[in-house]
Each structure stands twice: as structure tokens, then as C-alpha cells.
């Protein structure tokens, strides 16, 4: 187990290091002078020179990378050109929207998917199963940003139950903030739930076919108890693995859905930074999101390895 943990940690560090190189390298692909690209052709020469200095453009590329990576390790993501504030500060501010949004959508998708998956497995081949599989097929096929638009159409414009966009902030209390986050979280959660319900169904069916379940049934354990106490816990490992993999889709989905609802989160910050050609913000946010995905995937791997009762050589 220790060997597995060490190996996973080394691979995590290598991936993080390579990801930082990739983000840095892509930003070097800017055709021409990055400072000119960011400030525009009408920029004053001294402003241009100052930005070149801040970005270290007058130094060799390796020095520039080492300085940037060193600052990144200290949590310094540079200073945004548009906001004239440290990018790290902006990120922390925006995380107050993106993080609760992501968590809420994870909660909704799991709360929908586990019962639906169980129901489908319990009713295999019957109406309930087909209904869940139909929901799953539909959910997988609908992009989250379209679901978001349809939710706005129904719940905001027609029924007036939820705001069509914007975020009141946490200052006014948890209620209004969650009220504003519910539709975006639902839009993100539905496609995730569709995939997870299917994974849960498959995992529960696989577990139900195993010997220990037959033994439990033979010993007189009821059908519902077998499902909840024996099949579901065993099925949680594949479900958690897929949930971990979905994190990267969730990050991508959040970038788009935040823009549908004009939520001031990280995704909106990134999108606006592209429009404003604020490459320092783009670089900072992308590298952070990539690190987040890598770390979550590593944690899921480790959690699954810890939870898996099989010998570790097989599970890693």
C-alpha cells in the first residue's frame, strides 16, 4: 500500500510539473509580442516596457519559467492587467461562487443517480429500468449549457421561481445565494447524474451476480436489505471512480454554465479574461483548474485503493 501511495504521489508531482510547463509553453505561442497583444497597438511605449518587465519578456525563457513556477509554488499568480489586482486574490474571490456551485451539483447528481441506479438494477428489464435508462440516454445527450437555457426558459421566464442569472453574494445570507445557484447546479448535475445512474446500475448488477450476495439471500436476508447493505456499498467504488473522472467535465461544464447564468465565478473570470486579452489571468486560472483536476483524480485513486478490499497489487 505504501509503495502504491508513493508511486501515486510521484506521478502526481510529475503531472503537476508537466502541466505547469504546458501552460507556460502555450502562452509562449502568442504570435508577436504578448505585451503588445494584451495592451493593443495604441499602448504607450513606457506602459509596454513596464508590462514586458512584469512578464519578464526581456529575460531568457528558462529564467522566465523558473520565476513563474517559483511564484506559482508560493501562490503568486501575477497581477491582472484588467483588474490591477493579484490574480490569486481574484481567484479566491471567484471560488466563493464556483466551489459551492460545483459541490451543489455533485450533491444533486449523486442524490439523483444512486437511487435511480439502484431502482434500475432492482427492476432490471422492467419499466423502471427502461425509464432510468431512457433518462440516462437523454441526460447524456443534452449539453449542460442547453439544459441551463431550458431551465431559465421554464423556471425563470415562465414560472418566475428562480432568477435567470446573476449572483447576490453571500453577504445577504445563504438562502438567496443558494437560490441563485440552484438552477446552474441542476444544469451541471443532470448530465452527470445520467452517467452516474448508469454506472450505479451496472455496478449494482455486477455485485448482485457475486457469490456473497447469493449466500446472503440464501441465509434469508431480504431483497431490499441485500440491495442497500450488500450491493450498494460494493458498487460505490466504481461509482466513486467515475465521479472522480467526471470532475474534469464538471470543471469544463462550470466554465460554460457560469457564463449562461452570468455567475461571477472562475469560469466567467476566465471567459472575460480572454475577451480582455488578460493572458496573466488566463494562465493563472487554467493552471489552477488543471492542478485541481490532477489532485482530485489522485485523491480518488487513493481513496478507491484504500476502500478496495482486494489485494493492493490488483487494485492499483
Amino acid at each position, binding site marked *: 500500500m505504501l509503495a502504491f501511495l508513493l508511486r501515486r504521489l510521484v*506521478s502526481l508531482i*510529475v*503531472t503537476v510539473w*508537466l*502541466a505547469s510547463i*504546458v*501552460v507556460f509553453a*502555450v*502562452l509562449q*505561442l*502568442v*504570435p508577436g509580442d504578448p505585451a503588445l497583444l494584451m495592451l493593443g497597438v495604441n499602448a504607450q511605449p513606457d506602459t509596454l516596457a513596464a508590462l514586458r518587465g512584469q512578464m519578464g519578456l526581456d529575460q531568457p525563457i528558462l529564467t522566465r519559467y523558473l520565476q513563474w513556477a517559483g511564484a506559482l509554488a508560493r501562490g503568486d499568480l501575477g497581477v491582472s492587467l484588467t483588474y490591477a489586482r493579484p490574480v490569486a486574490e481574484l481567484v479566491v474571490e471567484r471560488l466563493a461562487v464556483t466551489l459551492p456551485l460545483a459541490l451543489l451539483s455533485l450533491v444533486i447528481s449523486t442524490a439523483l443517480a444512486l437511487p435511480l441506479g439502484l431502482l434500475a438494477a432492482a427492476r432490471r428489464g422492467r419499466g423502471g429500468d427502461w425509464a432510468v*435508462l431512457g433518462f440516462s*440516454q*437523454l441526460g*447524456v*445527450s*443534452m*449539453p449542460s*449549457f*442547453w439544459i441551463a*437555457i*431550458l431551465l*431559465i*426558459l421554464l423556471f425563470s*421566464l415562465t414560472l418566475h421561481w428562480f432568477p435567470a442569472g446573476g449572483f447576490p453574494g453571500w453577504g445577504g445570507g445563504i438562502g438567496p445565494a443558494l437560490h441563485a445557484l440552484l438552477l446552474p447546479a441542476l444544469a451541471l448535475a443532470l448530465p452527470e447524474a445520467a*452517467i452516474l445512474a*448508469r*454506472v450505479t*446500475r*451496472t455496478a449494482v*448488477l*455486477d455485485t448482485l451476480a457475486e457469490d456473497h450476495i447469493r449466500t446472503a439471500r440464501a441465509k434469508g436476508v431480504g431483497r431490499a436489505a441485500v440491495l442497500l447493505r450488500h450491493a450498494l456499498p460494493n458498487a460505490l467504488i466504481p461509482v466513486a471512480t*467515475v465521479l472522480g473522472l467526471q470532475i*474534469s*467535465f464538471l*470543471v*469544463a461544464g462550470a*466554465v*460554460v454554465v457560469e*457564463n*449562461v447564468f452570468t455567475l461571477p465565478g472562475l469560469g466567467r473570470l*476566465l*471567459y472575460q*479574461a*480572454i475577451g480582455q*486579452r488578460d*493572458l496573466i489571468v*488566463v494562465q493563472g486560472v*487554467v493552471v489552477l*483548474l*488543471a*492542478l485541481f*483536476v*490532477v489532485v482530485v*483524480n489522485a485523491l480518488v485513486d487513493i481513496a478507491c485503493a484504500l476502500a478496495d478490499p482486494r489485494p493492493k497489487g490488483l487494485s492499483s
Partner: protein
Amino acid sequence: MRRRLPLSLHLGAALTLLLVAMALLSLLWTPYPAEQVRVIARLKPPSAAHWLGTDHFGRDVLSMIMVGARNSLAVGAAAVGLGLLGGVPLGLLAAALGRWGDEVVARLGDLVFAFPAVLTAILLTAVLGAGAVNVVLALALFNAAVLARVTRGAALAVWRRPFVGAALALGRGPLSATLVHVLPNIAGIVVVQATVLFAVAIVNEAALSYLGLGIQPPSPSWGRMLGDAQTYLFTAPLQAVFPGVAIALSVMGLTMLGDGLRDWLDPRHRSSGVM
């Protein structure tokens, strides 16, 4: 005995054929030129003249959806084609080289998966500008990583089978064994994965075009049509429905085709897979 084709294969193939037919037809004919602006006929509801209505520039929505199908298919085909060209040889090589090559492909995969395709596309468009080419590049990179991993896994399983060992013992080289024995045996798995990735590419292209980073106007794209429709949700709500239905039916067709192919190729998997 001939096995019956799964229902999902029939439905998936039918929907996919419909999409391809619509895209091909748009090369020859659309009800109106897709880029024709008629401001006097803007935001009209569906009618006999415009079956799906018109958008905020008075453009015919059905014609735009037909041409949009062509654009979606082109981006998907390019992203999956390039992904296949890059990923399959890499996966085969990793399996043939064994431990060392395996490690390299696994680490490269980890790296690419750190960047969801949409994020890579955003990074590329931030640096190189918005457009379909950068979207294709970003999606192809992601697809290549997925296909390399799938190919490697499947190829490793084939390498362990006795007939490959026998071929090697008879003097066949690793390259020849890969091409003659390994590749034909994993082709099915790769095709299934490519079909699913095609669907994912269509969704991602639509999302990026919605943000204005993908296919650029005046060329129609389903994602951008949804973005435009959002502005007119009050006055023309149906405009936010039709392009979405087109995306959903295409993705549904391709995922069902992938599911059906997998069930057909490997009946043990029947209706149990993800996407």
C-alpha cells in the same frame, strides 16, 4: 448462428445517418441560403415558409441547422480523425514496447487529462484567437490521449494471447505482429471509442461556439445559435429549442451507435456501459 443486431445499434445508426444525410443535403440544397439576412422577417415563429422560424437577423433556422450539421460533423470528424492518427499508433507502440513505453503513454495521458478539452480549447483560443481550427486541435489532443490509452489497454490484452506469442516464435517481428495480429483484433474497441468521442466533440464544439470561441460567424453553428437565442428568450423561445434538439439527437445517435456496436462486438457488455 447470426447474432441479432442490438436495438441501440439500429436506432443509433438511423439517427447518425439522418445527421449525415442532412449535412450532405445542405451541400446541395437548403430551403434558403443559410447566411441570407432578411431583417423584415426577423424572429418569426415556425410557419409554412420557414418551418423552424427565423432568427434575429431573419435567417431561416432550418437552413442554419442543416449547415450547422455540416460544421459539427466536420469539426467532429477532424478532431476524431486526428485523434485516431495520433492516439492509435502511440497506444500500439506503448503496448509493443512494454514497461517503458507504457509508462510514457500513461504519464502523457495523465497530463492531457489534467486539461479538460474545453479548457485546452480556451487556452489555445486565448493565445491564437477564436476559430474552428484551434477547437479541432484542442479536441484532437484530448481524443488522441483517450484513444492511446484505450488502444494500449486493448493491445496489451491481445499481446498476452498465445497466437501472438506463436507468431513471434515463428519469426514475425513486433511491428509485423502489431499490424497483422494486434490491430485487427482491437479495431472494434477503437471504433466504439471513436464513435463516443465523436459525440463528445460535437458537444464540446457547441459549448465553445456558444462562448463565441468556436466556429465563427457568419458560418452557422448550433452552439452559437443557442447563444444568440438566449438573448431573445422572451420573444422567440423556440429558437433556443431547435438547435439544442439537433445537438441532442446527434449525440444520442452517436452514443447509441457506440453502445450498439459494443454490445454487438462483445455481448457480455450488453447495456452496461457508460456513455
